[in-house]
């Protein structure tokens, strides 16, 4: 049988399934039978050392996930396409203009002070005692008016009821020209 080394490998066992691609001819031992025997013995030694069972399967499993097409599929799955700089700047400009419009809208809205429970109580008393219309009481919530401080200090006195205060509040309302 002719082995990978041509006629000089006489005596080799045939196990071509393990080495399906064999080297071509051309031997330094040509013409020297002793060297040819050593070569043959080396081939026999190599062929007796089989690869462990399942080696190719394990190598395949470890590497198949790295095949180029598989990498491409994964990239598509996770949408890893590159984004152009133009697209990024366009999106940033849109987000910035929306933010500016929002801030302008907030600032241009009329600011209304929250009505505290105290203010609502004053309103009720005044409505009862002075018969004032709710629209007339707007001035009371203008905290910048120094006269409001008098109403507030009067009402925060704990030992006074609204009934006790009604007279004073009526006078204050007159004073505020309501």
């Amino acid at each position, binding site marked *: 049988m002719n082995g990978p080394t041509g006629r000089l490998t006489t005596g080799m066992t045939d196990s071509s399934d393990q080495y399906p691609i064999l*080297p*071509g001819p*051309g031997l330094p031992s040509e013409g020297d039978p002793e*060297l040819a025997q050593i070569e043959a013995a*080396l081939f026999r030694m190599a062929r007796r050392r089989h*690869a462990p069972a399942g080696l190719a399967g394990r*190598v395949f499993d*470890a*590497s198949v996930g*790295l095949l180029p097409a598989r990498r491409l599929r994964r990239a598509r799955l996770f949408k890893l396409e590159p984004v152009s700089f133009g697209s990024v700047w366009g999106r940033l400009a849109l987000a910035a203009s929306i933010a500016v419009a929002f801030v302008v809208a907030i600032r241009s809205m009329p600011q209304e002070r929250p009505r505290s429970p105290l203010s609502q109580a004053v309103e009720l008393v005044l409505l009862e005692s002075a018969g004032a219309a709710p629209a007339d009481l707007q001035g009371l919530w203008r905290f910048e008016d120094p006269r409001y401080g008098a109403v507030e200090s009067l009402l925060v006195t704990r030992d006074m009821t609204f009934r006790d205060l009604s007279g004073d509040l009526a006078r204050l309302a007159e004073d505020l020209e309501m």
Partner: protein
Amino acid sequence: MASTPEKTIEATLQRAAEGDETAWRRIVDTYSPRVFGLIRAQCGNSDLAEEITQSTFCTIVERIGRYTERGRFESWLFRIAMNRLRDEMRRRKRQARPVESEALVGLAGAAEEDPIASPASGQMKALEAALARLSEADRRIVHLRHFAGLSFARIAEVLGEPLGTVLARQHRALKKLRQHMGEEDLQ
């Protein structure tokens, strides 16, 4: 007309580069035992040889899309495998801690016993011993030729040496093996 092995390999590589898993399996089935055989012969450790084999094929598959086959696939594959082994041995040497000299005794014979080769004739054992006495460069050529099954032209490509140099070195290695085996017989 039957296609040449080179043409077959080229077509198989092309299909694998396009993501054909069957083609990739064929490449692995064909070459992984040879890569493993070479690396195990070089390092004498089956676990490390399998690790290096897997690493080699992972590298190949990562680059296969950019690889253009010009009949050099085998040399490319085995060069990567040899480089992987060299890097691993360097890494292990760097990480190795100093050990007592007594612990090193017998380490040279620590290469795994081959259960199939063990009951072989005395000629095989003599050949093993003679191989161990070769210089690293000579032994490498013998391993590439007989354990990886490469042609001399491919060995020259893997080692980056002229074909004549490779042939001369192989011839010298065989003569040394004969000489060493003769010495073994005399002992």
